[in-house]
């Protein structure tokens, strides 16, 4: 393998690499086991469909290609869905641990001029102390509190259409 083989086409979105396997034949993508040993599985088809919904909600609520978002979702299937959805919508993802301190989040928002944070509802305590939180839209996977947007609720309402790259 040489350097030239590692050069991407001029128009290229990394999500196309995953969509190759979402061909409707139910190929398994992820097996998730939680701390209580409960198992959950998703296929490539389901993953891409869910990510399309996420991409639709993010763009229809004001985010544009090139906008920066912090994705703060822990090790769970929704992390994959959120990253794929955001990338498909042309957003720039800041991979963010749910363990980030509020000062670290503040710095990232300020430094990157981020437009949104996408977080999981069980891990939003640190966000309360983020002083420049008014600069971003806070999307929550699960139940949103006041001032936040529930990604989950909007995805349920969202009229389904395939989001094209």
């Amino acid at each position, binding site marked *: 393998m040489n350097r030239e083989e590692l050069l991407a086409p001029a128009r290229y979105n990394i999500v196309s690499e995953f969509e190759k396997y979402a061909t409707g034949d139910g190929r398994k993508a992820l097996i998730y086991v939680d701390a209580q040993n409960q198992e959950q599985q998703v296929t490539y088809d389901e993953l891409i469909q869910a990510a399309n919904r996420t991409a639709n909600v993010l763009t229809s609520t004001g985010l544009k290609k090139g906008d920066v978002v912090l994705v703060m979702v822990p090790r769970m299937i929704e992390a994959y869905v959120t*990253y794929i959805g955001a990338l498909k919508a042309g957003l720039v993802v800041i991979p963010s641990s749910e363990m980030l301190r509020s000062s670290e989040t503040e710095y*990232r928002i300020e430094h990157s001029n981020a437009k949104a944070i996408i977080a999981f509802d069980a891990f939003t305590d640190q966000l309360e102390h983020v002083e420049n939180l008014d600069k971003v839209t806070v999307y929550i996977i699960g139940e949103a509190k006041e001032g936040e947007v529930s990604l989950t609720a909007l995805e349920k309402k969202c009229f389904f259409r395939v989001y094209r790259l």
Partner: protein
Amino acid sequence: MAFLSYTSGTTGKPKGVVHTHGWGYAHLRTTAPNWLGIEEHDIVWATAAPGWQKWIWTPFLSVLGSGAVGFVYGGKFDVNRYLQFLDEYQVNVLCCTPTEYRFIAKAEDLDEFSLASLKSAVSAGEPLNRGIIDIFERRFSLSVRDGYGQTENTLLVGTMIGMEPRPGSMGKPTPGNIVEVVNDEGKPAGVGVVGDIAVHKSTPALFHEYLNDPERTKMQFRGDYYITGDRAKKDEDGYFWFEGRGDDIIVSSGYTIGPFEVEDALIKHPAVRECAVVASPDPERGNVVKAFVVLRNDTTESTEKLVKELQNHVKELTAPYKYPRKIEFLEELPKTSSGKIMRVELRKKEQNQK
């Protein structure tokens, strides 16, 4: 721009590493087949957590971009549970941290598991000790292959699938990436000469820049090369041999000592669970080698005897001048939130004691 990954340097504010979609294209193609050894439909368990660049590298891009099945465990690290999952879910490819491998290798019930489905096991984040690799080799006939890379690039050097492993070596550059050991002038160093591990600026899997920070972006380059800050030498066959982080190298009585070789020797001792080796200021020698050791079991009795034993153990395995003149036992080592041992903290602690 696709990803903006913040990396905490040892000094200054975090840097925002800019990666394009094209970076992902290169990363996937060089790493997934050649190092991880992922094939379509494989069950792959990569334990990195979202929020870290390593999660982007492996569980996200390399697994889903290869048509494989990602195994994801949402619970906390537990040695026996890990081993059970490997057997129960018939995991084919495992990617975890040196710390996790160390705990697994020293598990009490290791013999109860077969790991029969596992065909590829890799480790990244910091070098994996030779003694740990040996345990997997002996017990499971499994070659745990090491890899080295940074948030700013991709896997740069490693033992690839099918490559003849050289014990203690980092392996060779990943296919398609131009990785060299360079000297102070930014030119490739000769065989056997220690220099900086560096990446040619034309390499597709190299980052675009640090966001809003042209100054620090520029500082990272020397000539045509991006400088990683890690030191190594290359042998006549192109294998890289790690010497340590630029700042981690210990100079004692004029000897240059890489901490990793000493740690590698220490961890081969059955009493040692984890260790970190740093320079400790010394009026006569400039510095001496000091080891911080976490023991496998709490044996508080007769530490003096154990210190002697560990020192002799290292003298037998390395050049004798490298043995740790000072040893301190700790309950745990300071680590970054991504699990890397923070030698810098231990070094500071030593300097402040002066």
